[in-house]
């Protein structure tokens, strides 16, 4: 798209769009009735609020917290691993350069799309209402949501692999399994792993919340702590989730460094 005309000045259309966006922003700001003094005072208020989280942590809660964090982590981990395995096979059908038939590819992509359209929280709620409370509905909900997401993510990674290697393998007379497993997948390996860790990271945070609907893990206690203003617990709970995410991130970097 060209934003600048032959003479070097912006095109009228470009100027029009900029003016429109500016107008929307300005009128939106005023329609929110946000006054200058509110904005100025918000900073200190926020800091005061946040301080409450860390002033006097309830250390007696620590053992329970560690158990719950581990539970949350396991829910995310188990769901992610099973989802990755299923999604890998799914992606071999969904990716346009791997699929045995374009119609099959389209069908797999459509199915994954439908599942992906349902937010994990809703999936967990539906499953919890059928299977009862506990870890199992949480794991299943995350597993389904993650598998659906990963099928698309993996397929996209597989599709952008360099065609030269594929052609090289084809020219040796290799069968179609070989063309995919030797010509395509090894090239995609690093990105497949990267995408998987990203999903794992996201699942950790989702798992933390799912507990709020009774699906196991730290979520139930987290919601309770918010409801009862238990700041002495909220601080260390959030810290605990943060550390878990950080640990997965560090692991991800290490693995990707080794794979490259």
């Amino acid at each position: 798209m060209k934003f600048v005309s032959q003479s070097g000045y912006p095109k009228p259309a470009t100027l029009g769009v900029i003016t429109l966006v500016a107008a929307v922003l300005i009128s939106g700001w005023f329609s929110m009735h946000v006054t200058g003094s509110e904005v100025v005072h918000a900073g200190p208020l926020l800091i005061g609020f946040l301080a409450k989280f860390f002033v006097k942590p309830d250390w007696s809660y620590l053992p329970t917290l560690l158990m719950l964090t581990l539970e949350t982590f396991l829910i995310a981990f188990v769901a992610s691993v099973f989802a990755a395995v299923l999604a890998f096979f799914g992606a071999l059908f969904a990716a346009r350069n791997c699929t045995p038939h374009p119609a099959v590819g389209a069908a797999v992509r459509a199915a994954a799309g439908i599942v992906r359209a349902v937010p994990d929280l809703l999936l967990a709620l539906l499953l919890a209402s059928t299977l009862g409370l506990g870890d199992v509905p949480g794991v299943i909900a995350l597993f389904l949501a993650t598998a659906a997401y990963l099928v698309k993510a993996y397929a996209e990674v597989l599709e952008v692999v360099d065609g030269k290697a594929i052609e090289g393998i084809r020219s040796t007379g290799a069968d179609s399994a070989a063309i995919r497993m030797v010509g395509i997948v090894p090239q995609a390996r690093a990105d497949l792993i990267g995408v998987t860790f990203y999903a794992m990271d996201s699942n950790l945070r989702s798992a933390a919340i799912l507990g709020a609907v009774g699906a196991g893990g730290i979520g139930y206690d987290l919601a309770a702590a918010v409801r009862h203003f238990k700041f002495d617990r909220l601080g260390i709970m959030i810290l605990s989730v943060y550390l878990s995410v950080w640990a997965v991130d560090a692991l991800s970097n290490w693995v990707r460094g080794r794979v490259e």
Partner: protein
Amino acid sequence: MGTGVRLAGVSKRFPNGVQAISDVTLGFSPGEVAVVLGPSGAGKSTLLRMINGLEVASEGSIEVGDLQVNPATLRSVRRRVGMVFQQFNLVPRLSVMANVLCGRLAYRNWITSVFFAFPESDYETARHAIKSVGLEGREWDRVDRLSGGQQQRVAIARTLVQGAQVILADEPVASLDPATSEEVLSLLVALARENQVTLILNLHQVDLAQKYADRIIGIQKGKVHCDVSADALTPELQKSLYR
């Protein structure tokens, strides 16, 4: 042991209407070293790629030995026809050994492909091929860490373990500097002659063609312009080919 290649009345029209090859009839005898010369866009690449089915001929027939080249025979044809590409077409993240072993994929089943489980005899064959292209000791290096000349040697080794009876080389040295081009080309031709493999090369360097080929085929605008023995390529013929 090389095998002959026969093209009879072969034409290729691409979906966008471009007539890349028109009515080409050529025969290659076993063990022959033939170079295809011609200006860019003449159809040299298309011609070569039809022999191993990477492009499908619109008309005419192509035979490799006793095999007709058609969709049903592709794997069998490709088993006996090895190809060396301008950009090497190796799998970048895999090692030299892994890439060379790929030449054996045509002889193995899907279990080998999925688990990359080749028998020891294949590793032996691969080691031997890696040695004959001068890369002994570098079996476990990743190919994308090698120089262009070295990568092309890996590609040549791959055709060797394939037991190819015909080797097609589509501008094999176009991406290499002049000194390396000579090294790689002389290696390729030497190995082909040693194994009596039929070698068909696309080149744009006329001097290299005259040095290494038995026979030179000139292609211009999708048709055979001339078909002479290498020492019969006169300057006039050359000029008319590249006009």
